Structure formats: structure tokens, C-alpha cells
């Protein structure tokens, strides 16, 4: 029984040296964990995160020579993944059924008289508000505050200007600060100063 596939790949696949395969495999084994975390924070959904990571690396495999030529391979791969995420979201219609995986399982049945709203953790509120952000805002937030990338590298990853990154982060933080009363900080103030 034979199979013919019609994947869109570069012609250099047929001539790929075994050394490149080993380097690709090594990258996959060592970097998938961090890519999965990034993907999960972007998609907020386990299966979608897996799909995003897998599809991105499968797509990059025939183009691995380009990845190896990049100054920072992980940044290159992550940028491709973020772009794939943003492009994919833009294609989805509004009827997509999307379930927030942050509440797996079932709620505790509380004894009568307890105020459920008092049980809601501020962190849950912030996590939920992150889901309300636009995909580009969330991507900027994840790259800036989870990966601690400077604005210039966030701009590189999002293919936009530094000013745009600051604007995305400003608006996102403006949304997130409604989840609680926070102490002042220089970083937050810097971005929130530019909210429009």
C-alpha cells in the first residue's frame, strides 16, 4: 500500500544531509518545551498549542537551512510560530467554537451562604483578562513579560515598529490593571503613560 502526499516543501529536502536531520532533531527535543509554553500562553488551549508548535516545526523542517543561518535559531522559530498564530487567528471566522481551558474539571460545590465571588482569585481574573486581549496584544505581552524580550526584539518578532509594540503593551496593561489594585512600578508606569 503506498501513499502519495502533497505537502508544500522546498526542493532541498531530498538533498538534506543527515547532519541537518540530527541538528533538527536536537533542536526539537531541547526547544519544544519552551515553544509549547509560548504557544499555550498565546492560544490558551492545550490542543491548539500542540498544533501550533507541531505545524510550525514541520513547516520549518524543509527550510531548516534558513533557521540554522539565523543568528538566534530559537528566536527565529518563535517568530515564525507567533506569525503563524496571528495569521491563523485572523483567518478564523467568528463562529469558531473555542473553549477556555483554564477551568478544566468542575467547580467545588460550596456550602450555602458562601459568597462565590469572594473565592475568585485575582490571578484568575488576570488570566481571564489576558484572554480578552486581541491576539497581537497578547503576543506582545507574552514576548515582553514572559520571555523578557526588549521592545525592539518584540517588534522584530511581530514584524512591526517599536512604537507599535509600546502601543500594544500600553493598551493591554490598561485592560489588565482593572483586575486589581496594584502597587506602582516604573515599568508599568512607562507603558501606561502612553495609553491612547
Amino acid at each position, binding site marked *: 500500500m503506498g*501513499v502519495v*502526499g502533497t505537502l508544500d516543501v522546498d526542493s532541498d529536502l531530498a538533498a538534506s544531509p543527515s547532519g541537518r536531520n540530527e541538528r533538527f532533531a536536537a533542536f526539537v527535543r531541547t526547544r519544544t518545551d519552551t515553544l509549547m509554553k509560548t504557544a499555550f500562553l498565546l492560544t490558551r488551549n492545550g490542543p*491548539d498549542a*500542540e498544533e501550533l508548535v507541531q505545524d510550525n516545526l514541520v513547516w520549518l523542517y524543509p527550510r531548516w537551512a534558513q533557521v540554522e543561518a539565523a543568528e538566534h535559531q530559537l528566536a527565529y522559530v518563535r517568530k515564525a510560530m507567533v506569525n503563524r498564530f496571528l495569521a491563523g487567528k485572523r483567518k*478564523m471566522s467568528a463562529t469558531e467554537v473555542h*473553549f477556555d481551558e483554564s477551568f478544566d474539571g468542575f467547580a467545588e*460545590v460550596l456550602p450555602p451562604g458562601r459568597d462565590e465571588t469572594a473565592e475568585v482569585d485575582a*490571578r484568575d481574573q488576570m488570566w481571564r483578562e489576558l484572554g480578552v486581549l486581541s491576539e497581537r496584544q497578547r503576543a506582545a505581552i507574552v514576548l515582553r513579560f514572559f520571555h523578557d524580550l526588549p521592545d525592539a526584539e518584540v517588534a522584530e518578532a511581530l514584524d512591526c515598529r517599536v512604537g507599535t509594540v509600546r502601543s500594544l503593551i500600553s493598551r493591554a496593561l490598561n485592560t*489588565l490593571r482593572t483586575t486589581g489594585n496594584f502597587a506602582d512600578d516604573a515599568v508599568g508606569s512607562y507603558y501606561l503613560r502612553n495609553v491612547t
Partner: protein
Amino acid sequence: MTTNRSLTEELQSVLRAHSLDAPEPSAAIDDILARTIEADSSDEQPAPRSRPRVLGLPLRPAIVGVAASVAIVLVGAAVVNTARHKGSTASTASLSEGSAAATQQNRVGAADKNSSGDSAAPSAAAECARPSDRVSASTVGPLTVPQTGARLSVVVTTCTDASGVATGSQVDVVSQTGSSLATLVDRTRAIQADFVIVEGTRITVRGYSARLGGAFDYPFTMSPDGTAFTAGPTQRYAANCVADNVRVSIKNGPIRDRTQLVQVVNTDIYPCALAGYPTVTALSGSTTRAVAAATIAGPSGGVSGSVAPVVVLTPGAVATALVELDTQTDGTGVCPASDRVRVSVGAPARTVTIPVKLPVCGLQVHPLVPGETGSN
């Protein structure tokens, strides 16, 4: 809520905490390597782009296309099918834009090596991941080849563990002599095939995977000469049932003092899917007295068949799992009672703890099934 942290400190903390909920990478690593390096090295075709391991199945929840219509029901799914088609199409996600899903074709090999006329299910389908797994098989058909009139069949082989929980299904198109012509769903994908629809040359496999996020339709089209099976875009039919969209409770079962029912109701406006057993723990205070044994069926009911069914709950629909009790089996003639029952469904799951007294002897629970009786 007041915090001593700054906004950005709290944000970083939240992101780090939730990043730990990301899926384990090991399965993704295996899949990536299988779809790239291993696929290259195992190809038999001149074109190095094919994927012989996964044949014609774009296993991704990116959704495009139109759901199939009336089903030919597969093993143990009759009641499920009825529940599923109750007004479910209105809430089915159906995106209009194509995804990047690769179209794959399964072709009959030029040399069909199985010429012995063996009419058994394809041998590959009988191999489960673990030696202790059990196998159940069903056949759907006929699938008639337009140009030749040959009658093919679709064989679904499902591997299950000892409690009947499916570990993966394989769906093969089989010739009249029993030789496998194409594998539409590979069992290593750990998808439970719920049922198969055959309409002319169109085959749709509905499969469930909690890991992939719910129940999906995988459509295929047979070529007029029956030598190729082209995969269409996958469509998610129902997402996993999660905390926000179900309500869980316990009520008395059909046989008083011997049975209880775990009841799960879909409170959402969309269908959701789940399969397997709830975890039922009998407690006294905070002490675990007994954890119900997961058994496919018992003296008072349960699942007819050997596979825990996939349950798709349309809005408002109910699924139940039968809990059986035996009050006199602790050897002393007295069976201690718990004062609370903790029920968990899904993994990871938060739990529902209900103040219900249950004898703890001989506690067993059967799989979730559609309807209110705990049996199908």
C-alpha cells in the same frame, strides 16, 4: 482584590504560573519527528514528501468544511447518535476559510502483497500498543467502487484497556478478500472512532480525543476507481466538556439502596464531548474510605459492549454513570458508610463534593452513557 505587587510583577507571575499548564512536549516531539525525519526515511515513494504513517488524516482541530449527514452507527453508539443529532448542527463550528491542512491521498500499492484471500481484519489493526490491551472490531459498508462495482468495507478496530477505555482506533478500508487497501485513521493517533458514515464515495470518521480537544469529523473521498482516498479538512464537532459548561450531581439509581447515578448535564449552548469513567471517591470527613472500581458493567447495568462510549452532549442533554453498591461484603456483615462523595470527570479535573452517604463495600462505577439510566 488588593496586592502588594505591581501590575507587571503580577502579570509575570500569572504568565509563569499558567505556562506550567502547557502540554507536556514529549508527544509533540514524537509527532514532529515522525512527520519530518522519520517520514523522510521510511518513504517508499520516489517523492520524499509522503507520510506513510498517517494516511490521509489531517489530525488537527483547525476547522473547515461541512459536516457529514446521517450516520451509519458503529458499535454501541445508537443512543449517542440520537442525542447527537438533536439540533446539534446549529452549534457546530463550520468555518468558511480553508486551513493549511495538507490533502493526502491513499493509493493502492502497485503490489498488493496480501493475496492469500485472508478475510480477517487487517493484521496491523489487531496490534495494540500494549499486550494487555483488548481489541474490538466492527465493519461498516459496503463502500461500492463506482467504476468497478467492487464492494469494499470500512473496518474499525479499537484497542481498549482492561476497563474498556479506548486507547486508540484504527480505521481501514478493506477489500472483499480482507486485505487492507488504505488506513484512514492510524491507532497510534490515540483517537477513539465513535462511528463511521458511508455515503456513496464519501467516508466520514467521527473520532474523539480528549487530548486533541473533543470530537472531530474526518472526511474522506474515494476516487471513482477506488484506488485513492483523499482526506478533506477536519471539523470539530464538539469540544471537550469542561467545568464551565456542565453541571454534576448524584441521584438515586434505578435500584434503590444498591445504585446511584452520577449525572452530567450540558449547561452550555454548544455541544460538548466526553468519554470514560467519572472518579467516584467515598469519604468520611477528609478520609478516603473507598474509590469506586471502574468496570464496564455490573449486575445492575452499565455499558452493553466492551468499549466505553463517546458521549456527545447537545445543550441540555444528560449523561449518567451507574454506581453500584454492595452493602454486605466486608466480611463482618456490616458495611461502613461514607458521609460525602467526591466526583471528578475529566483530567485534570476539579471536583464536586456532595454530602451523600454511601456504603463503601463493593463500590464500582460504570462508564458515562447518554441518558438518565446509566445503562445503554
